[in-house]
């Protein structure tokens, strides 16, 4: 009998303790809510300081971006990608380090390296990207990076990079050049000449 009653008493008291916890939370909702009203508010929350500044981040893994003018076509990122979502085609150029205005090719990167290759294709399939950030490290020119965070000054973060078509998520970073102009530099053309 004692056990029976104490059991009931224990049940009631613990249940009331639990209800007290939820009541406390309900009363403090104005201060303690954690909701982010997404389209209006974005991370990090503007009005609340929880210790994170954009400068504080090491990196934000959002979306890959390539500064194609700096790319020297070394294929390091393509090789290191675990899911093969980067595809690069390059064309050798005779005039190393010179601007080719007709295909808007810059000869010298912002780091001062002379480019020996034209990057004719630089596709990143973001549907396959696993956001491992591995391609960012080996890049000698630091031209492939994740947008946002410490890179916001170069490329702001793209919160909703959603598309209606799957193919639109294949990002083509290479300069959009007509085939005619490009064909001048293609190796096959040269072989024919010889």
């Amino acid at each position, binding site marked *: 009998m004692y056990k029976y009653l104490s059991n009931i008493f*224990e*049940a009631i008291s*613990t*249940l009331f*303790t*639990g209800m*007290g*916890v*939820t009541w406390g*939370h309900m009363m403090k909702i104005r201060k303690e809510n*954690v909701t982010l009203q997404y389209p209006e508010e974005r991370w990090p929350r503007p009005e609340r300081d*929880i*210790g*994170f500044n954009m400068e*504080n*981040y*090491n*990196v*934000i*893994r*959002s979306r890959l971006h390539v500064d194609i003018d700096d790319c020297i076509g070394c294929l390091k990122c393509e090789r*290191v*990608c*675990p899911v093969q979502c980067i595809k690069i085609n390059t064309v050798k150029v005779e005039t190393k380090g010179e601007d080719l205005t007709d295909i808007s090719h810059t000869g010298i990167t912002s780091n001062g390296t002379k480019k020996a290759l034209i990057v004719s294709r630089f596709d990143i399939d973001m549907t396959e990207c*696993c*956001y*491992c*950030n*591995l391609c960012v*490290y080996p890049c000698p020119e630091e031209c492939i990076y*994740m947008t946002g*965070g410490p890179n916001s000054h170069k490329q702001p973060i793209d919160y909703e990079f959603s598309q209606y078509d799957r193919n639109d998520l294949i990002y083509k970073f290479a300069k959009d050049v007509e085939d005619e102009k490009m064909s001048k530099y293609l190796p096959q053309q040269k072989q024919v000449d010889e």
Partner: protein
Amino acid sequence: MGIVHGDLMTLNIGPQHPSTHGVLRLKVKTDGEIISEVEPYIGYLHRCFEKHCENVTYDQVIPYTDRCDYIASMNNNFGYAVAVEELMKIKVPERVEYIRVIVAELNRIASHLLALGTFGLDVGAFTPFLYMFRDRERILDIFEVLCGARLLYNYIWVGGVSHDFPKEFVKIVYSFLDYFEPKIKEYNEILTYNKIFIERTADVGVMPPEVAISYGVSGPNLRGSGVQWDIRKNETYSIYEKFDFDIPVGSGIMGTVGDCWDRYYVRMQEMPQSAKIIRQALKAIPEGNVHQALPKKIRPPKGFIYKRTESPRGDLAYYIVSDGSPIPFRLKMRSPAFTALSVLGEISQGWMMSDVIAILGSLDIVLGEIDR
């Protein structure tokens, strides 16, 4: 009174079901509400992680390990990195070891929070689940500051880590710990000592230690059965021997040793222990270059290694065979959740429908790791 025996009804729990923690199918034979047989069917998430690993280089394996136990990616990275480093005989800098311990323990807290929250959800308590998720979010925020990712980190590399701490990171972790430690009292009030919760979990799904060991159950599930076995202490790796922490084991306060409540409570007690380790590590962390020991090309010598580490779910082991090339010849992951799920059929016999869900929840499985 005699027992009425009717025909058994076969019931498929899953693959789409709210409480199977992923895509798991349980083929259950029931006699009314009483379960007479449970047979888990797995493999719905199978993507042959091990075959993938035989086709990518050692550093490219790390993103794949992330995706095995996606709740505790840091620990997966950690285990893999430790195994490959031992194979290559790399000595990593002191600072790297401290950073690894800190992030691994943070991730252990995050993983346990998710385990406890979803366990609460399985027995019908929704609010504690969200409280725990709220606190887990803060850990994920910390990881986002650290390496840019919230779930799949690829942070711990062979020979080092990908980034050093950002400035003020130590302060952020301290502020999180100060925030987090009092919250455990709240969890206890709302869930642990709730009478309904105790009724639902105590004495339910008792896993005796012999059964647990025979089934290879490890981690908090094994400790819930009262076996003091923690690889961080018993077979110490990295720098865990430097820290002072306890290994909580189940003692059957509310029922029998090895019941669901014990497994739950072991996890609950492990979180403050992890916080304790983090505090010690933050205090003692030395300066240094985290990229110092990163090998340019990971090419382990011929040989094999079987290396166990303690993930939040138990003994996470990698069996790596190297043939001297930059690609692993064979990589086997011994996942703790795999063994934990295999015991379900044994310990849930004779319980009721609702108990099977509770037992499954208390085992804390992650299907990504079971199916690999």
